[in-house]
């Protein structure tokens, strides 16, 4: 049984089709990344899963229960949030959690304290939410989701506004929950964060699913990645790159070289540099396979293969 099973989900607003016949499935213990540029329909899709928006067509099953009557029983054991988490600013973080726990019928001070501790807000639970930063609200949103001991988590940009430490903690928490069998659907623009936690990906563009598969499949299908390269002899490195099919190299504006090549060609190129006694002083990944794949799938003019390496890196990074 899937934790999420959606078939043919469609939502139209006036003349716009925000979500167009989307099929989606998330298995227990799976962390699925939901990717797409702004306006791809990710948030509307999440809102439909939560029952906040009624689909014009299609069906949703959460944990085996049809979501015909959204909310209530249909969302039992489902946690998460859509867009930035929102709370009552005149209540403290703990009081907000207590109120939400009350809505679930199980107000427990111990559970509230435990959830606050788990997201690193144990010292600030008594403060009014009005004084919380974006990152703290994000943490409180996670605490509110954890309070339900969910078997399915639907998270929209969970690391948005978090500092690097907070991002790492959320990443670790997601992996920990997945290991416990919790199914997680994670929507994010921060592709780098998704790469660390997701087992599978669904990529959306203009309301449609344009790619769906595992992380391994995605990396295999990814076009060239972009790297920054500094060598002892850049001229020689450029010549060697020109002799290697599938490797594109050019001078970077800030010095050094920019490379565009598929991951499986990297080793051969670096060995060739070594054979030619060209020392590699620096090799940095500028745009990962996931980032270039995301760009290739979602950009209006996905000319990944035609872009100069540095331009590719800049464009991909800007798009993602």
């Amino acid at each position, binding site marked *: 049984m899937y934790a999420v099973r959606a078939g043919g989900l469609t939502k139209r607003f006036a003349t716009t089709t925000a979500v167009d016949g989307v099929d989606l499935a998330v298995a*227990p*213990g799976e962390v699925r990344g939901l990717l797409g540029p702004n306006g791809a329909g990710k948030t509307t899709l999440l809102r439909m899963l939560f029952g906040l928006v009624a689909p014009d067509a299609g069906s949703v099953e959460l944990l085996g229960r049809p979501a015909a009557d959204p*909310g209530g029983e249909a*969302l*039992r054991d489902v946690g998460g949030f859509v867009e930035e988490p929102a709370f009552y600013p005149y209540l403290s973080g703990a009081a907000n959690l*207590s109120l939400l726990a*009350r809505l679930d019928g199980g107000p427990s001070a111990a559970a509230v304290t435990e959830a606050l501790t788990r997201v690193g807000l144990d010292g600030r639970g008594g403060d009014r939410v009005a004084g919380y930063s974006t990152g703290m609200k994000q943490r409180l949103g996670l605490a509110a989701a954890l309070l*339900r001991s969910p078997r399915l988590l639907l998270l929209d940009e969970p690391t948005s506004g978090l500092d690097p430490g907070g991002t790492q903690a959320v990443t670790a928490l997601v992996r920990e929950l997945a290991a416990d069998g919790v*199914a997680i659907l994670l929507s994010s623009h921060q592709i780098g964060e998704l790469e660390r936690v997701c087992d599978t990906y669904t990529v959306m563009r203009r309301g449609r699913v344009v790619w769906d598969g595992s992380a391994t499949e995605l990396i295999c299908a990814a076009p060239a990645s972009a790297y920054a390269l500094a060598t002892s002899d850049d001229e020689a490195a450029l010549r060697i790159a020109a002799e290697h099919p599938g490797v594109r190299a050019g001078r970077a504006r800030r010095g050094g070289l920019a490379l565009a090549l598929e991951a499986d060609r990297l080793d051969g190129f670096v060995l060739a540099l070594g054979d030619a006694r060209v020392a590699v002083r620096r090799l940095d990944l500028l745009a990962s396979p996931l980032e270039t794949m995301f760009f290739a799938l979602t950009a209006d003019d996905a000319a990944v293969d035609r872009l100069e390496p540095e331009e590719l890196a800049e464009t991909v990074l800007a798009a993602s």
Partner: protein
Amino acid sequence: MSSAAPSIPAAATRPIGGEDPIWNAFRAELQKLGAQLTIRLLALACVACPFAFAAVLKVQSGTPNDALFGVYAHSSGYALSLVLLTFAGNWGLPVIAGLIGGDLFAAEDRHGTWKTILTRSCTRIDVFVAKLLAAAALAVGLTLLLALASLLAGVLLIGANSMVDLSGVTTSSGQMLLLTVLSWLLCLLPTLAYTSIAILFSIASRNGIVGVLGPLFVALVTQLLFLIGNGVIVHLLLPGSAYLGWHGLFTAHRFLGPLVISSLVSVAWIVGCVWASLAILRRRDFLASAERRGPGWRTPVKAVAATAALVAALALLSDVGPSAVTEHRLSAAIGEEFNRLTLRQQELIGRQVPAGAKLDVLPTCNRRAAKAEGPGDWTCSLNVYLPQAHAVPFSATSVEYDVSVDAGGCFKASSPPSFIGGPTMVDAAGETVTNPLYVVYGCFNTL
């Protein structure tokens, strides 16, 4: 698609949704309302205002004569409570209803918290019913708090004294207490109607300011329509008409027709507003803020135009139906009351008034430069035929009263003190008491 675990983990043992979800949501709503500064200040005002009003009256000689029973505010605590009830019915209770119901739903839009509460264990209908019950409980609670505070302020600072009713009959303290409590209780239904209106404004506009001011606007329109129209039909259909229903309890011949009809009208307002609110909420998609609305100005302009058209239509229709205020009704009411109050005045100054005594009073009421019907300013001449020793036939003494009549059939009559005396008089025991003839309050059945 990978599947790290073969099956969905077992549900937690926590009692999620273990209780009735409406009850859970109701308690959560009370928790929110209780934490809001506005609601706390409102509760404080409900307690403090009656005491402040009573304290101000205590230290000054003037009385709020324009309100029913106002002239007795110095002599009976019940009068103070009833004066406050009149004011509350006109403005205070619609304001309370607006502050409670007007922001209850719109606040979720303002804070963006619809998605937070609707992704828990409650359906939107559960949340709607819980909010409705919380608003009703708070509206009833604050109305009763205001009633209790006004009674306590009146009784403690003025005194639990007997008082003249709206027919000129002296009513005992116990009966006044009973009638005053009953009158406040009767105002619960129209207050709930105004709360429902506030909720509808709140849900339809998604704007707390519109929700809070909406009931106040309805109260204002109600007051204006009470002033301009003669017909009884539109008046009875207004949500504020039930605030006048208690007047019929304070007359010698109690009339309950307007009370029953206006109470049923309140119920109709409640049902209509709740139904419309639920229909809007059920159909609503909870979208991101940027997607919520189309062009920003069209909806408000349409709403304002529709409201203006509705008010204009009601104003045009306010003369439809039988007139509530007629010369016959007013003359009969004021004549009978003047009779009783004159005898009451005689008793106060120590003269013997035989049981069943009655003056021969011939009342004639007219309006200045207007048709003799409808609310507004009237003049009543009361020709009193007194048996005098050397006069054959009896000589008539004429007393002129300026009478202000409202659409609910209640009036305030006042006259120069040449015949009736000043605002106070000294009774047989040497005490200064309110002169019952100085300002005469009365009510008659408008149906």
